[in-house]
């Protein structure tokens, strides 16, 4: 199998314009004839649903939440990048493009990233027109701030709730279209399978989470905007409900899953405090501007009150190892360093999984009032969750999973290898390579939904005139029965352990073996252990209640069942990628100082995995990454 990424010809900065000039357009009268299914109502899904509906398509939009306004995009804090150059500080489309490619450690597709940088400016215009209350200067113009991986101020923000405001903007557009009847919204409805008819994606199987009813929906094209798979780790900064089911079911119906091993681990989160914990909370990276990160030099000191540990007995390890970047070393490096010192037994707090983020020097230098002004809300949040006062005692932080760069493989049109199946936002793989820069997730979700798919969908739809699928086609009934059988199978196990027990154990396995540091030996071991855990799940799961009506344990069980298969694919991908790049750190490939060593000679490709049946080794299909403009270089932060 070969993959055609359908990158338009011509110079990099002209590709998107050339594409648009030649794009196949569906006329307004014909748009009315097409039905679209959009799964997910986050930034990508809501923006796509609103835009495609206002253009005239008939849209059905599905989300598992009780309202489209609650999709997890809402939790993004920091901001959204755009190459507006409002600060006149030298930003440009090319610079945003280059920063994103470099930030991704040269493992993203050049043409897609350039298009993302190009449309970034329109996103800000669009959001302001919708009423998104971005931060402003006293003169009334938009304010910007800086983010990691960039030397310019290009990040737009709405307090610490940028994701919330952007999502509510997209949700308001979606609500408008629901009111006009152009979108039919299905909240509390979860996609459980994809229906493929004669090789084309033509529908989905869903379960109504209120009534338990399982049904099928047909359409001319299906758009998956279902987010990432960070919850394979059980503990992550993702919402409880985030899951891999939609994309993984599509994988099992033939869609290729690309780069599943690329995950991002954020360095500043509140550490795990016990087995009962259900999620991790991010603390803004901005804290590292004034906080100093350290652990005790001696293991014996770890349980002592930090105030009693003398300056000479503290190891400010980031300042020691990366003198020029110090505490502001990039995310992947900071996360890995924290893990190293904890692995050496020098971590602090419960379980020894934490490092100190100490503000005492800053408080002495600037006064508590200044620190309060800068970070007051974060200190409050920290105190609420941990019960500790960070003005008096250093914060404890630890890395946590919060984004996944891998996803379903898509071409330049955002269409997967299954014709008709399009994938947008975090659910696809295309723009962030092996590491995502801060404030780029919101940009990509909205770019895909507002400004890319409305142009690229026509490429497929114009081949579908007069080919409306028959909803009575046996493929629908077959998929429906498959799903019903699967739900019944889960209920019929009647074992002894609740679903969270399996999920928690899977998460620990993935975290230990496929987290911040990975090795061939460990990954092989993990694959074996995941297979065992999966077998145990299917023989010992205890699930009460009926499949009719609300049954949240059943919802979780279905998701965990998919994670138990997906986790293995993730480890396999990490095993095969025998190099270190971005968030993927293979311990075999590092410099003597512990820095990642990339192997462009052998691994400058996208790993796209093809399902070949349960129990069979999936087939690896490679899409070579050809760089026309950018020269591959090594990142250094010393």
């Amino acid at each position, binding site marked *: 199998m070969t993959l055609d990424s359908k990158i338009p010809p011509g110079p990099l900065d002209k590709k998107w314009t050339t594409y648009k000039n030649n794009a196949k357009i569906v006329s307004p009268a014909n748009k009315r004839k097409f039905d679209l299914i959009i799964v997910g109502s986050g930034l990508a899904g809501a923006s796509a649903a609103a835009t495609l509906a*206002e253009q005239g398509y008939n849209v059905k939009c599905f989300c598992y939440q009780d309202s489209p306004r609650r999709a*997890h995009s809402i939790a993004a804090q920091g901001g959204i990048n755009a190459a507006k150059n409002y600060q006149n500080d030298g930003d440009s489309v090319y610079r945003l493009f280059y920063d994103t490619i470099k930030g991704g450690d040269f493992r993203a597709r050049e043409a897609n990233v350039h298009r993302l940088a190009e449309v970034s400016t329109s996103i800000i215009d*669009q959001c302001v027109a919708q*009423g998104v209350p971005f931060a402003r200067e006293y003169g009334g113009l938009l304010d910007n701030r800086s983010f990691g991986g960039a030397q310019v101020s290009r990040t737009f923000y709405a307090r610490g709730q940028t994701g919330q405001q952007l999502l509510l903007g997209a949700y308001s557009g979606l609500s408008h279209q629901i009111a006009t009847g152009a979108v039919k919204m299905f909240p509390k409805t979860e996609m459980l399978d994809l229906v493929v008819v004669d090789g084309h994606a033509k529908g989905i199987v869903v379960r109504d989470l209120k009534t338990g009813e399982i049904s099928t929906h047909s359409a001319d094209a299906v758009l998956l905007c279902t987010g990432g798979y960070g919850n394979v780790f059980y503990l992550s900064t993702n919402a409880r409900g985030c899951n891999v089911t939609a994309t993984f079911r599509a994988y099992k119906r033939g869609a290729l899953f690309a780069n599943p091993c690329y995950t991002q681990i954020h360095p500043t989160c509140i550490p795990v405090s016990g087995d009962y*914990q259900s999620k991790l909370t991010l603390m803004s990276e901005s804290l590292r501007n004034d906080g100093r990160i350290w652990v005790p030099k001696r293991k014996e000191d770890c349980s002592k009150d930090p105030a009693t540990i003398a300056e000479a007995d503290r190891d400010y390890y980031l300042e020691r190892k990366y003198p020029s970047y110090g505490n502001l070393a990039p995310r992947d490096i900071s996360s890995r360093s924290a893990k190293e010192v904890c692995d050496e037994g020098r971590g602090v707090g419960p379980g020894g999984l934490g490092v100190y983020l100490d503000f005492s020097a800053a408080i002495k230098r600037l006064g508590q009032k200044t620190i309060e002004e800068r970070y007051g809300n974060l200190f409050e949040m920290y105190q609420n969750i941990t019960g500790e006062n960070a003005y008096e005692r250093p914060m404890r932080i630890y890395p946590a999973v919060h984004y996944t760069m891998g996803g379903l493989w898509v071409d330049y049109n955002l269409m997967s290898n299954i014709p008709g199946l399009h994938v947008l936002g975090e659910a696809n793989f295309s723009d962030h390579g092996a590491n995502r820069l801060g404030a780029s997730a919101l940009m990509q979700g909205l770019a895909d939904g507002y400004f890319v798919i409305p142009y690229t969908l026509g490429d497929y739809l114009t081949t579908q005139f007069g080919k409306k699928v028959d909803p009575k086609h046996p493929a629908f009934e077959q998929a429906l029965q498959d799903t019903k059988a699967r739900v019944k199978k889960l209920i019929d196990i009647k074992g002894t352990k609740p679903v969270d027990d399996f999920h928690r154990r899977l998460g620990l396995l993935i975290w230990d073996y496929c987290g911040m540091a990975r090795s061939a030996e460990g990954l092989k071991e993990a694959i074996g252990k995941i297979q065992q855990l999966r077998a145990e799940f299917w023989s010992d799961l205890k699930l009460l209640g009926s499949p009719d009506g609300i049954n949240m344990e059943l919802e979780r069980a279905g998701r965990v069942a998919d994670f138990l298969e997906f986790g293995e694919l993730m480890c396999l991908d990490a095993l095969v990628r025998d190099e270190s790049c971005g968030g993927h750190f293979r311990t075999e490939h590092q410099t003597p100082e512990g820095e990642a060593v990339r192997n462009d000679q052998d691994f400058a490709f996208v790993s796209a995995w093809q399902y070949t049946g349960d129990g069979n080794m999936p087939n690896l299909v490679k899409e070579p990454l050809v760089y026309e403009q950018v020269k591959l270089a090594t990142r250094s932060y010393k």
Partner: protein
Amino acid sequence: MKFHLKVWRQKDPNAPGKLEDYEAENIPADASFLEMLDIVNAGLTRKNIEPIQFDSDCREGICGTCSLTINGIPHGKGRGTTCQLYMRKFQDGETITIEPFRADPFPVQRDLVTNRSAFDRVIQAGGYISERSGSAPDANSVPISKVIADQAMDAAACIGCGACAAACPNGSAMLFVSAKVTHLGLLPQGKPEKNRRVLSMVRKMDEEGFGNCSNYYACEAVCPAGVPAAFIGRMNREFTAASLKEMAGMTV
């Protein structure tokens, strides 16, 4: 820590519900309220009792999914969502009553799960600015003073959880509706539609069965996003002005 729980159990929307007694034992003080319920649910499953159904998602206070009435107060004591309430705030051995959000337009679906889609329908009635993707002028072409932008953000911070309506003795959703009316009405981009917006949103709110405001300020007290009740007065003024225009036969 340990607690004695009285939890609302209800099989389906039409079945009668009642409070059931459960013991919550070995609860870490650092657990959140929802994590306490997770622990209780795992115990119930082991004892072959169906777990308590309750809504939650982000568990960091922003999505607005969690919606429990704890000892009679939506989201419990203190400001913040149910998910941001930690067990160390309770006394060891305390009896805790847990019910769904109570408001007529939020029918109970099962146990602690309610249907709050009435809020979505109120937004659909006009809580948006009509604009097409791609039709916007440059973002800096219309300056907006920082004061106005900040006020709009105060209103836009609403998370749509419904605690305001659940806390109000009248079951009024006016804090929720006024937050959206204020957010969009303050901004130059939202002004062209402001009359039509406030009229249709308020009418939809009434149609959904929400009550009127009689100045209890319970909504403001429980709002996890800190939306001030002063916005209700602002909405009333906008509504009155728009109604007068409408009565005078002017196009709104």
